[in-house]
């Protein structure tokens, strides 16, 4: 029973979720190690394609976990993996949010909160930088990124229009 893929996946992703500080993309190399090298659930190519599918589909990147589960054990696998990956951290987030709100007027809470904001900003900027280095592998892609940034900063246009335009430019094969 313990060797059932469902049990292994549930335990593995529940454990991984608690260490995945920095989001799902930070945990990609670790998932690759387990799914391809250790368990041989899929080939290298299949893993790369799954990463691409998880990027192209709308929604949080953590969705790749459901794809791995689906590949290994169908719909049940997808459900088990996404639940294991999100359950523990969601419970923790809920408890922290509650405790946090109980001390809303405490000076130490305000200091921690005020101190975390600039750190948070630096880290978001870092992930934008890392994303740009992967996404912008030529001048045209860099221009698309820069143009989108400028339009989104200065106007209130719905960004889906920008995505549609960028998708068409991508389809043309320039990027």
């Amino acid at each position, binding site marked *: 029973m313990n060797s059932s893929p469902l049990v292994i996946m549930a335990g593995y992703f529940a454990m991984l*979720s*608690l260490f*995945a*500080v920095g989001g*799902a993309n930070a945990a990609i190399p670790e998932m690759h190690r387990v799914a391809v090298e250790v368990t041989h659930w899929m080939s290298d190519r299949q893993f790369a394609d799954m990463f*691409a*599918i998880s*990027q*192209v*589909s*709308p*929604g*949080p*990147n*953590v*969705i790749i976990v459901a794809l791995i589960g689906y590949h290994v054990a169908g719909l049940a696998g*997808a459900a088990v993996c*996404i639940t294991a*990956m*999100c359950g523990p*951290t969601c419970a*923790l*987030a*809920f408890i922290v*949010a509650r405790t946090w709100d109980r001390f*809303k007027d405490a*000076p*130490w809470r*305000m*200091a921690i*909160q*005020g*101190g975390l*904001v*600039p*750190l*948070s*900003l*630096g*880290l*978001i*900027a*870092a992930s*934008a*930088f890392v*994303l740009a280095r992967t*996404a*912008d592998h030529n001048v045209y892609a860099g221009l*698309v*990124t820069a143009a*989108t*940034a400028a339009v989104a*900063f200065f106007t209130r246009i719905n*960004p889906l229009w*920008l*995505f549609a*335009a960028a998708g*068409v430019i*991508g389809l043309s*094969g320039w990027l």
Partner: protein
Amino acid sequence: MPDSTALPAAIRPPLSELFFAFAQVSISGFGAALPWARRMIVDQKRWMTAEEFNETFALSQFLPGPNVINFSVVFGSRFGGVVGAAVALAGLLGPPLVIVTILATLYERFGDLETLGRILAGITAAATGLLVAVVAKMATPLFLERWNSAPVIAILAFVGVAIMHWPLPYVFLGLAPFSVGLAWVKR
């Protein structure tokens, strides 16, 4: 500093609105849901000020697990306790799970990702630009205030993770005491 606790009853919309708001954020996301969450919550619904949003997101970022998922739980629980958290999470995860399952089925059958890959290259470049715009929006108030240590901390965190490639937990543990200490003194 404004408190960012439970929303007043007057602006607490029905749970269905919460579900659809997070579903919309999620579907528009393409790898970076933060810009969309900010647009929905701060600009469109006005459920939070920009400052409250930054603080709540910062809290979500330092919990383990995907940031946006943590954010939906923290935001939803302020809205309506356990039910609110579950509704926001369901909105965030439900629709993309359905879509990705369909894509996975198509992939298992056809396995051709060439065209998809090209379109994706364009969208990813644009999604990155969107994230850059949000960083600029979040940075503006912090960088405009005088005698403020925030830009230094933000720049150090950026350099540590993006340029030096130090592990995120080290950067966090190294900078957080200073950042919180400075906020304590300034209080």
